[in-house]
């Protein structure tokens, strides 16, 4: 069954004098990165299949400013944040869904001090809520019995304490979940945070994503579930560097749901 997706913008809802149930904050990666675009599409498919009215900001969305802030560039962060808050408050946005833990964290924890307070939810939490409410049913069993592992992103896990929601979503897939040695509070970073994504590494023995991928290979898992576009890139690159891309697949939680349901 394929889902016919049409994505509306906030401006269209406004023109119809309506408001969507939720705003999907796509983020830079979800908008422009070829890998992360697939995640955006998966989320759009799930929302559409469940008849959830959602909107995106489209051209009115701008980088949250997270990488600028963590790089130390507070001016740029403030410009981005205040501009986004103007837009969000202008539309009277209440609830925001993000597919990126960095957007999630900044919108949820850093915008309130600047005058932007919203109910922000990461898609792994949203998927869990939908499953618990019986709205989202995971069918098929494409991953039934498959050895699958989960990589905690720092900004969903350690920073915001969300460890269980993504694991519950994975349980719904009936797969054989194996935990990595460093998981939950001790989860090892993929290497992209703190604006490392945009620069070369400092000299060292190896790249952080290599360290993480070695652990994934040792776990024997054939599928790695992630919840962050930057983790997807880092883990994907690391797996390629180890020449394991034929054996180990990296997917976002939403992609696993879409594949299971054949959407």
């Amino acid at each position, binding site marked *: 069954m394929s889902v016919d997706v049409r994505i509306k*913008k906030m401006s269209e809802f406004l023109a119809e004098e309506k408001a969507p149930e939720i705003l999907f904050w*796509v983020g*830079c990666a979800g*908008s*422009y*990165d070829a890998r992360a*675009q697939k995640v*955006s*599409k998966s989320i759009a498919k799930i929302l559409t299949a469940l008849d959830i009215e959602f909107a995106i900001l*489209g*051209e009115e*969305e*701008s*980088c949250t*400013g997270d*990488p*600028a*802030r*963590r*790089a*130390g*560039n*507070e*001016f*740029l962060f*403030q*410009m981005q944040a*205040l*501009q986004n808050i*103007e837009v969000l408050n202008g539309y009277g946005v209440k609830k925001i869904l993000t597919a990126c833990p960095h957007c999630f*964290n900044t919108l*949820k*924890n*850093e915008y309130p001090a*600047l005058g932007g307070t919203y109910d922000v939810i990461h898609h792994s939490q949203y998927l869990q809520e939908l499953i618990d409410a019986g709205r989202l049913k995971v069918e098929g069993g494409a991953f039934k019995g498959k050895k699958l592992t989960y990589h905690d992103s*720092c900004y969903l896990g*350690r*920073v*915001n304490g969300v460890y269980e929601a993504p694991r519950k979503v994975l349980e719904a897939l009936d797969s054989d979940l194996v935990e990595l040695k460093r998981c939950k*509070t*001790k989860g*090892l*970073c993929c290497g*992209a*945070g*703190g*604006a490392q*994504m*945009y*620069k070369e*590494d*400092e*000299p*060292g*023995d*190896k*790249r*952080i994503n*290599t*360290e993480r991928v070695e652990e994934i290979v040792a776990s024997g898992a054939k599928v790695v579930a992630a919840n962050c576009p930057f983790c997807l890139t880092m883990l994907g690159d690391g797996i390629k560097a180890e020449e394991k891309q034929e054996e180990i697949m990296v997917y976002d939680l939403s992609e696993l749901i879409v594949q299971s349901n054949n959407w």
Partner: protein
Amino acid sequence: MALSQIMFILLIGVVGFVGFKRYSRLRRNILLGKEPILEKDNSTRWKNVALVAFGQKKMFKNWIPAVLHFFIYAAFVITQIELIEIFIDGIFGQHRFFAPFLGGFYVFIISFIEILSVLALIATVVFLVRRNLLKVPRLKKPEMKGWPTMDANLILIGELLLLTGICCMNGADMVLQDMNDSHYVQTGNFAITGWLGPMLFGGMSAEGLIGVERFGWWLHIIMVLGFIIYLTYSKHLHILLAFPNVFYAKLNSRGEMSNMPEIMNEVKSMMGLIPEEEVSADAELPSFGAKDVFDLDWRMILNAYTCTECGRCTAECPANITGKKLSPRKIMMDIRDRAEEVGTALDSGTVTLDENGVYDDGRSLFDFITKEEIYACTACNACVEACPIMIDPLAPILELRRSDILNESAGPKDWLPMFNSIEQVGAVWQMPDARDAWTNEI
């Protein structure tokens, strides 16, 4: 008044005086930092003190060191009861002042202290072996070379001497009690020295035994008093500072970097969100972030003095694990060392702080911490999570970045395209497509 009483009172006086000076100096060094904005939620703060500081909750993520550490901690806390008696005995020339009042309960307390002391002894020996014979990576990092390792060993050796003191003091006392000397109150047998005392000192002359007992008593109190002063030169201040440090620890989400209202208001006025008059027009260009200890808030300097250099943060740091120079523990040590450097200059009396509370000797934190270190950080919060006493090494790292980027326009060149792209097109990459182009191909 006996000579020993005069000596004791004199000793207390000297330690009191030196201690007061040393701890006042410590307080002054911590307060070189700026006033932090503290979240007002004292009930959570006290809860943290109870669970994390007293209860050592975060230590128990790793059971073996946690249990061993708990032995030493418990012995340290409970021994304070015995110290009260030592003080009374020392000043008034008494011997085991509490014994007649407490009777059987006295034996229980002293026995309890003795059992904990044995457990502490085991832990101390294990820690000495671990530090010197085993290759625990976090205890062998470059920043641990020299004084930090020596410091740790001195403390452990000091602990052994202290325990030796207790053993001599109580052990000889047990044998003297059996000799029915009226000066030695009949207390009944203590749990350990009740049998260990006769085994070690049985058959000695009364003079010899008194010598051993006095030696143990003085060694015990001298070690304790010496320790109070030594702490201020050492990494071991956590036994005192862990409590205020946990109390003052950040309560807001880890995910929130401290806001910079001066920049927020500047940007708001640029965007026409607030009238220009509301932005304070300082003639001087303000400095942002932290270049020196004066720019940090004092909570970060308290963090630095509280750090006991255990290295749990460094062991979890992804940059350090993969061989980068960054070590969160070293960042904390560097902040403390810089505060000490400034403190020593102030002690000399030849320099004073200016009206902004700053003293410029041409040096800064960047003489201790290299840019290579701060730019290797992934802001993953593993170090923050790892610290058993709620030290936050990430906060000063990000403040140092702010200083370098905002004041010096320095920082990794690789970041420039990202900054420019965000500024020009509102995305981290400069792409020709529209932001919603992905929606066309589902």
